[in-house]
């Protein structure tokens, strides 16, 4: 009986130990760092654009074919950005035009003729994630004859 009483008193005393006697709080620093991230992707790495008989109008020199099967996707967490486009071909036989259709962010620079000099493709895409349809327009003149142009087209996120 006495022992039980001792134990009871022991625990009662323990509960009276002031909380301030122990360290109840601790802290540390958690740093979150976000790098400047830019990501670009095209839905397909290759596009085959062929001018067919359906694109030819008798009596007209100009023959035109259009492709809208691929999409450009981007993400950038930096402000003041745009997308430029250029081709690797310095002297293409035929004319190749490009246009950004329905961008989910920013604005299209409109239809442009591709050259080996970077041209604006999309404007004001800073700090966003989005996509647009890529429209290619191939133009050949009957007088330019038969042939093929192999382009490597480069899309680049650049400062605006």
């Amino acid at each position, binding site marked *: 009986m006495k022992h039980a009483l001792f134990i009871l008193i022991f625990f009662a005393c323990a*509960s009276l130990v002031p909380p301030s006697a122990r360290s109840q709080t601790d802290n540390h620093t958690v740093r*979150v760092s976000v790098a400047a991230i830019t990501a670009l992707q095209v839905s397909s790495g290759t596009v085959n654009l062929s001018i067919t008989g359906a694109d030819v109008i008798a009596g007209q020199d100009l023959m035109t074919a259009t492709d809208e099967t691929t999409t450009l996707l981007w993400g950038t967490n930096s402000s003041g950005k745009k997308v430029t486009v250029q081709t690797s071909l310095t002297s293409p036989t035929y004319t190749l035009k490009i246009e950004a259709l329905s961008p989910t962010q920013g604005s299209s620079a409109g239809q442009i003729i591709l050259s080996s000099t970077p041209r604006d493709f999309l404007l004001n895409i800073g700090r966003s994630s989005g996509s647009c349809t890529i429209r290619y327009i191939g133009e050949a003149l009957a007088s330019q004859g038969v042939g093929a142009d192999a382009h490597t087209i480069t899309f680049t996120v650049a400062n605006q």
Partner: protein
Amino acid sequence: MKPSFSSCTVILASGFLMLALAGERVQGQTLRILGGNVTLSITTGLAGAEPLPVQNTASRLRYRRSFTVQKITVTSNCPGQNFSLTVVATNVTAGTASPQVTLSDGMPPIDFITNIPSGFFTNATATLNYTAWATFAQGNSTELGDDVHTVTYTISAQ
């Protein structure tokens, strides 16, 4: 001479206090963060989607069970916060982890581990599982600076 009942009580209580205070020195604090400060770096993103979240489980929480049921709360201070940070306790050896807590500047204390059962000065641990994430629209540290959270954990009677 046989010691009286009251003498025994005083001796036992004193002994306990000495034990408790000695325990502080021997076992450290009641609540302690192990592993030091933490850095989470977001470096990768998906075109057409968002940057990939980053997790860190390098730090742990060690806490001492007491004679009463306790809980641990968490709060954060991060002036000028731009990005998102959450924490959840995993591998909890005593108590029940609360759902993931979003850490924001000036937040009130939020339950982190609850129902820590009473025990005789036994230590328990939990892994601090931090996840940092940001959208492209939230920007980057080069332009905005890092988020530096002072995350505070507090243990108290529940």
